[in-house]
C-alpha cells in the first residue's frame, strides 16, 4: 500500500517482530500515533501561543506543564525539548566550551558528541574502556590528568554515556560524577538509551546535564530529544537573547539563543506529551524487560557457537552478539551468503537484524511481549537446527 506512488506505508511494526537495535524504545504509543493524526499541521501547537511567545510557555495544549513534569521525572531543575539528543549536546558544548578546549568523551561515545565538540572548535579526548568494555571513574580521572599535563589546563566538559549505543553496557556515571565534582568539571550524561525506558534521575546520578532522545527511548517521533540541567547551569545554557537589530532596533523577547527561539514544535512535542504517561509507567517495568532479554539470550546461547559480546547478565535490552562460530559458518557456504539469516528470519516474520551480517551484530528486545520473546528464541533455534547447528539443552 502506498501513500503516494513512491511512498509506501511502513507497517513493519504491525507485520514483523522488529529486533533493530536502536528502534525499540522509540516505537510510538497509540496515544502518540493519535497525536500525529491530530497535530500534523506545521504550526499546530501555536494556536494559543500568547505572551511571552515561547513554545515551552504555551499553556494550551499544556506544553508548559509538560516541561515542569518532565523536569521532575528526570530529576533535574530545568528541561527543554529539542530536535534530538544531538541538539542537546550541541547546546551544552556551545555554551561551555571555547575553541581549543578539551572535552572528555567515552570511547563508545556517539558520533554526534564528537561533532558537537568539533563544531565548537574544541578537541575530543577519549577515555579508554576497561576489559569489560566499561568506562570507569578511574580511567576518567587518569584521562583528565593526562589532558591537564599535556595542555596545561583541565578539560572544559565531560560527556559520558549512561548506556552506550554499541554494546548497551552501563558506564559508571555516578563514579565519574564524583570525579567531575572533585575537578570542578561539568558533566553531561548522554542517556539517549536509558531516559524513557528505565528510571533515570539526573541529580541522583550527580550530573549537571542530562540529555535524552525521544525517538530512541521516549516512544516519540524523530527528531525529538530532551536537554535537562541543574539550576546552576540553566542561565548559561538557556540564556535569552540580548541582540538588537541595528536598523530596526528589534529585540526578541525571551527567546533562548541555544534553542534558536522556539524548541520542538508541532506533532513531535505533542507526541512526546501523549507518550509521557505511558513512559512514566513503563520505566517501572524495566526489570521485566531485563528478564526478557536475559531469557532470550539464555536460549540464544543454547545454539552452539553463539556468543554475547555485551556485559552479562544484561542490564540493557540492546545487546551485541557474535555468531561467527554458528550462523556465519553457514553463510560462508550458502549461495545467499550472510543474507541467508535475514531470509530465514523474514520467513518467520522477524526483521531488524543488520541484513547480511552473520558475524557480530546487535539486537534489541525492548517492548516485546513474553509470547514474542519465546517466538523469537524458538525462531533462532529453529534456523540453527535447519542448518545442522547443534542446539543444546543448557546454554
Amino acid at each position: 500500500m502506498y501513500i503516494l506512488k513512491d511512498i509506501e506505508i511502513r507497517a513493519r511494526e504491525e507485520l514483523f517482530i522488529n529486533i533493530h537495535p536502536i528502534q525499540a524504545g522509540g516505537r510510538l504509543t497509540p496515544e502518540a500515533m493519535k497525536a500525529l493524526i491530530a497535530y500534523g499541521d506545521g504550526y499546530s501547537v501555536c494556536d494559543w501561543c500568547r505572551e511571552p511567545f515561547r513554545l515551552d510557555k504555551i499553556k494550551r495544549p499544556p506544553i508548559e506543564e509538560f516541561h515542569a513534569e518532565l523536569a521532575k521525572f528526570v530529576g533535574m531543575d530545568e528541561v527543554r525539548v529539542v530536535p534530538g539528543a544531538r541538539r542537546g549536546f550541541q547546546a551544552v558544548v556551545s555554551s561551555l566550551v571555547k575553541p581549543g578546549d578539551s572535552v572528555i568523551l567515552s570511547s563508545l561515545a556517539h558520533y554526534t558528541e564528537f561533532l558537537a565538540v568539533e563544531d565548537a572548535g574544541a578537541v575530543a579526548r577519549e577515555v579508554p574502556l576497561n576489559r569489560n568494555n566499561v568506562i570507569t571513574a578511574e580511567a576518567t580521572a587518569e584521562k583528565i590528568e593526562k589532558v591537564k599535563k599535556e595542555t596545561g589546563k583541565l578539560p572544559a566538559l565531560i560527556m559520558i554515556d549512561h548506556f552506550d549505543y554499541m554494546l548497551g553496557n552501563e558506564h559508571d556515571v555516578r563514579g565519574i560524577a564524583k570525579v567531575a565534582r572533585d575537578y570542578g568539571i561539568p558533566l553531561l550524561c548522554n542517556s539517549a538509551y536509558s531516559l524513557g525506558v528505565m528510571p533515570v534521575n539526573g541529580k541522583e546520578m550527580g550530573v549537571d546535564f542530562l540529555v535524552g532522545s525521544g525517538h530512541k527511548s521516549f516512544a516519540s517521533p524523530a527528531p525529538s530529544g530532551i536537554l535537562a540541567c541543574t539550576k546552576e547551569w540553566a542561565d548559561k545554557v538557556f540564556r535569552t537573547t540580548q541582540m538588537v537589530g541595528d536598523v530596526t532596533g528589534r529585540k526578541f523577547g525571551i527567546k533562548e539563543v541555544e534553542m534558536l527561539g522556539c524548541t520542538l514544535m508541532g506533532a513531535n512535542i505533542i507526541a512526546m506529551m501523549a507518550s509521557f504517561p505511558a513512559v512514566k509507567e513503563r520505566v517501572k517495568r524495566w526489570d521485566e524487560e531485563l528478564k526478557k532479554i536475559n531469557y532470550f539470550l539464555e536460549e540464544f546461547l543454547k545454539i552452539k557457537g553463539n556468543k554475547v559480546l555485551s556485559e552479562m547478565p544484561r542490564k540493557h535490552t540492546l545487546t551485541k552478539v557474535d555468531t561467527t562460530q554458528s550462523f556465519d559458518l553457514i553463510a560462508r557456504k550458502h549461495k545467499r551468503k550472510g543474507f541467508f539469516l535475514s531470509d530465514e528470519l523474514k520467513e518467520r516474520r522477524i526483521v531488524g537484524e543488520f541484513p547480511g551480517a552473520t558475524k557480530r551484530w546487535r539486537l534489541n528486545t525492548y517492548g516485546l511481549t513474553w509470547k514474542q520473546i519465546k517466538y523469537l528464541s524458538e525462531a533462532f533455534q529453529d534456523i540453527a537446527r535447519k542448518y545442522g547447528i547443534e542446539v543444546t539443552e543448557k546454554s
Partner: protein
Amino acid sequence: MKESRRGEKAVEETFRALFALTDLRQIFRDTKPTYELDEEQRGKVKKILETVKESLKIIEKELLGDVHP
C-alpha cells in the same frame, strides 16, 4: 449554523474512528506475528469495530443524509 454543527459532528466522528483504528494498530503490534488474540484482545477488537461502524454511520448521516435519505 445548523450545517456547521453537522460538519463538526462528522469531523469528531472521523477522529473517533481514526483513533479506534489506531488502537487496532496497537493490537496488531502486540500480537504479531501470529495474531492469536486472547479473550481481552478479542473484546477490544470487537469494541473497536463497533466504534468505527458507529462513527461511519454518523458521518454518512451527517454528510450524505440529504442526498441518501
